[in-house]
């Protein structure tokens, strides 16, 4: 990294970290949201993909819809902010349900069980109601898209890793004859694997930030 770039990063680290939903402020790794579907239902690349499509359909429209509704209702009715997000989420779920059914058939819905409808109350989707100040629709759209990308990267990665470790396959293609970590297919293994991924990811982020500050310090 060039010194100019390092200086820019060092000066704007807080703002850049806040806006980066993929790497520095990933919703799963840094904020711990959207854990339930990832830990229990995303046991293979296929189930992770089913959940990913549903999240992609639900997250951004819910956030934008919630932002518009909250603004329209005004401060007087802010105590109902949670409903401003939950109702659009429940409506988006109907679209996600039919899309998943159309793409993979009813068996896909059975494989993810209650974890698909559960997305309606998932903090990943509706947590913006807790924010004291409502966001504008344009900002909601931008942030929603970034958060979706950040979540899907971890969801698909964890789903594929669990399939490989538990079954020795990737997207149903058998690659290994041994089961390296069969527990990965169970919720307990999901918690442990996600914990390990979180630790490694956070370690890399800390190292990245430390390197930037050291680089700037060296070139003072």
């Amino acid at each position, binding site marked *: 990294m060039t010194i100019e770039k390092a200086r820019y990063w060092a000066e704007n680290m807080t703002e850049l970290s806040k806006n980066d939903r993929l790497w520095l402020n990933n919703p799963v*790794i840094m904020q*711990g*949201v*959207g*854990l*339930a579907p990832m*830990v*229990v*239902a995303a046991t293979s690349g296929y189930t992770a993909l089913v959940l990913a499509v549903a999240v992609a359909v639900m997250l951004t429209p819910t956030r934008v819809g919630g932002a518009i509704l909250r603004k329209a209702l005004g401060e007087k009715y802010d*105590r109902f*902010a*949670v*409903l401003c997000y*939950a*109702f659009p*989420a*429940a*409506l988006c*779920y*109907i679209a996600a*349900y*039919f899309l998943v059914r159309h793409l993979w058939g009813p068996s896909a*819905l059975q494989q*993810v*069980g*209650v*974890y698909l*409808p*559960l997305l*309606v*109350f*998932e*903090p*990943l989707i*509706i947590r913006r*109601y*807790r924010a004291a100040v409502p966001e504008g629709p344009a900002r909601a759209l931008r942030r929603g898209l970034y958060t979706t990308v950040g979540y899907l990267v971890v969801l698909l990665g964890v789903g594929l890793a669990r399939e490989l470790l538990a079954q020795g396959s990737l997207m149903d293609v058998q690659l290994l004859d041994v089961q390296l970590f069969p*527990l990965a297919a*169970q*919720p*307990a*293994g*999901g*918690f*442990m694997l*996600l*914990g*390990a991924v*979180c*630790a*490694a990811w*956070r*370690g890399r982020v*800390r190292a990245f930030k430390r390197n930037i500050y050291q680089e700037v310090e060296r070139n003072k």
Partner: protein
Amino acid sequence: MSVILKALAEFVLYAVLAAFAQNAVLSRALGVSHLVRLVDDGATGNGAFCLLLTVVQVVAVPMCWGANQLLTPFAYRSAVRPLVFLLITTAACGLVWLVYWLALGKKQSDDAHKEMGALLATASFNSCVLGTMLIVTTQSLTLPQAIGFALGSGVGYYLAVVLVAEGQRRLRNRRIPMSFRGLPITLLYLGMLALAIYGFTGHTLLI
């Protein structure tokens, strides 16, 4: 008489099952994102949160059981179930608020009402509540079984909160590598607790 006794036995059995063997957090990870935040944020009363969650669940589950019976002939009931359950949760949340208002409304300050409102919203619109309602309906439980399951699920959530809070207290240790502190070590700890639950359930879980 035997019908009442049977219903009571089913209620108790499902309550115990939901609290321990099929613990909402440890076997199904329901409400785990909230739990991690709740335990981290020591300011919020864990007991009050779990009490509200349990009460809303117990109030909402009979309504969602009835609604599910009405939805049975509808071909695409699974698509609209979350919307119906959202309406039921809203009604249950309103009912709990009304009882609170009638019992303590005039004695509390505006700030206390605001705090209670925020806590009730977080406890009601929680994936543990929706998850419990969905499990009760997809597994076709009878009404006593459903209410028992809802009660046990709330108690199980509280047990998980207590276990994780105590675990985190003991895990605040300098010997734990920096990268593992906070969420990663909590997830590993939850994984180990979930592993202990396999002693009750075996390796298969209906989701």
